[in-house]
């Protein structure tokens, strides 16, 4: 029964009905994740909210340890547990809260309705199976396809993501491919069953710059073609600019700023975002010392009180050390609302307008 139910909703989702236009594809509400380690409880995600619509790209930006990967792993349901635990919140995907589903139901959603692309394709692909086997596995397990049919589909997928001589290469192993080609295979695998949502966790970090652009372009093309929601996790501001619709900046397990992509670059409303933007090398500042945010990311076992960024913030005042700032709606100086903008800073007005 479970199989039929999920397949029906999968079809409905693919139909792009009026329903999916209104409600977001994925809505994460007040998500909290912690790691219970020997040294104590590390609060990796502390009340994160975001949403993604079909065809929309959300970029989640942050340093290592900001909780960007952990929150997406919680969405996929692949958190290493123990030590990781989702301790609160909701993950509403196509109208149902994933956290209330059984493990088996969540498993059936993975790969078919939401898929993930990982950072390092060499270690993320199994070294002892051919790429054909690994691609075909999606059809074999989720669709019950025969072996030969699955292989045919694997070849089609490889052609779809632009791998030359796919028919011959389908029997090769991951180590026989170049980095870019491997990442294409990762993408093909995520795409196999045409999911509604793809989470790409730093998909281009391990690649050199020219290949990065190709892979991002491919991802954007496929997303447009299948009208998928895409969550792009990255620490690279350059990657984000071209493909994302909106950005959420994370720091110490919280979203500190959200904005449509170009507005964020033009007018950051949080000192942390501004610091990130200022630390991008620029041609017109050649010869000057590059700006860097002082200090280190906080230890998640002991997150600073108040605003977690306060020890590194150039604008920090007394209130920043005592009160956690909520995500304020950001407006123009005259109070006119700015669509989709928010900043978790007590001094957002001074940051964006001052």
């Amino acid at each position, binding site marked *: 029964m479970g199989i039929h139910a999920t397949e029906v909703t999968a079809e409905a989702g693919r139909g792009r009905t009026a329903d999916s236009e209104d409600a977001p594809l994925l809505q994460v509400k007040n998500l909290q994740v912690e790691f219970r380690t020997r040294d104590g409880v590390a609060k990796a995600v502390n009340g994160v909210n975001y949403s993604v619509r079909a065809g929309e790209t959300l970029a989640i930006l942050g340093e290592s340890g900001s909780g960007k990967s952990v929150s997406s792993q919680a969405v*996929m349901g*692949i958190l*290493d547990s123990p030590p990781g635990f989702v301790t609160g919140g909701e993950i509403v995907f196509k109208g149902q809260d994933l956290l209330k589903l059984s493990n088996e139901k969540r*498993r*059936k*959603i*993975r*790969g*078919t309705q939401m*898929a*993930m692309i*990982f950072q*390092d394709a060499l*270690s*993320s*692909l*199994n*070294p*002892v*199976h051919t790429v054909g086997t690994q691609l075909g*596995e*999606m059809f074999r*397990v*989720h669709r019950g396809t025969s072996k030969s049919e699955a292989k045919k589909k694997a070849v089609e997928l490889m052609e779809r993501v632009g791998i030359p001589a796919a028919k011959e290469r389908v029997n090769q*192993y991951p*180590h026989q491919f170049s980095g870019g080609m491997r990442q294409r295979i990762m993408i093909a*695998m995520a795409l196999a069953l045409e999911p509604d949502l793809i989470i790409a966790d730093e998909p281009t970090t391990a690649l050199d710059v020219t290949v990065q652009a190709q892979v991002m372009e491919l991802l954007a093309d496929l997303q447009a073609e299948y009208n998928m929601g895409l969550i792009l996790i990255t620490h690279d501001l350059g990657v984000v600019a071209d493909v994302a619709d909106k950005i959420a900046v994370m720091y110490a397990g919280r979203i500190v700023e959200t904005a449509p992509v170009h507005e964020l670059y033009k007018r950051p409303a949080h000192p942390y975002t501004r610091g990130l933007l200022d630390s991008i090398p620029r041609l017109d500042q050649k010869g000057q010392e590059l700006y860097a945010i002082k200090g280190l990311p906080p230890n998640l076992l002991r997150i600073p009180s108040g605003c977690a960024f306060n020890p590194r913030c150039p604008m920090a005042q007394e209130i920043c050390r005592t009160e956690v700032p909520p995500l304020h709606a950001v407006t123009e100086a005259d109070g006119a609302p700015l669509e989709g903008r928010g900043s978790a800073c007590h001094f957002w007005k001074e940051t964006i307008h001052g």
Partner: protein
Amino acid sequence: MGRYVIRRLLQMIPVFIGTTFIIFAMVHALGDPVAAFFGDKAPDPAAAAQIRQQLGLDNPLIVQYGNYMKGIFSGNLGTAFNGQPVTDLLKIAYPTTLKLALVAFTFEVIIGIGLGVLSGMRRGRLADTGVMMMTLIVISIPTFVIGYVLQYLFGVKWGLADATVPPGAPFQSLLLPGIVLASVSLAYVARLTRTTIAENSKADYVRTAVAKGLPRRRVVTHHLLRNSLIPVITFLGTDLGALMGGALVTERIFNIHGVGYYLYQGIVHQDTSTVVGFVTVLVIVFLLANLLVDLLYAVLDPRIRYA
């Protein structure tokens, strides 16, 4: 691949000559074999000289070795002091040793890997701690102690198994010696499996397999185990070579007339032909087993290619 195999086979020739010569020289250095022949009594010098001449023992060592090697290549491994050709002894001894090796190997594979997977998947829990402690104990105790204790308990006190193996060595009677012979390797297999399972369960490709929505059973068998067992199988292959070389201690304890038993007899009586003949065959078996392991490794891990 073919070239690699040929190269490896050619490499065996110097190893083969070297080991046989060393064994030959070592047995020679043990003392006068003819004196040993007579036991505690001093031999009649004339009779001893005659025996020496008959067996070619009056020639210099290098000539004896040369004669011996000539024999090997015509399929004659020499004659034991009791008049039996060494090849006949091998024919009697080897099937028994093979049977024992097979029993021990089965225990190693099933129990060793089974325990390893169990504790690797439940790291830090009770089952894991238990397996770790048990294997540590087994590794720390010498085989002859385990052998005699189990023989006494199962064979004598409780009468659950044969205390010694009757002639013909039926499989049933080899179960107890098999587990004694397997015990230490079994413990190593369990520990090795546990380590690789624990290591690989954190691997990125296992996470990918989970993200693909594969059922847990498939993640474990197709992705985790398939990778984790590569080093284990390599270890097992080498160990199979060692098992086929007979087991001096275990065969003595349970009175099994296998390779180890005859080898022991040969050493005690300074019977050069028997010792060198048996060891020669063991060397070949071991070299071939090692070659097989290396080839198997390439089959299991596609990243390894021999040229």
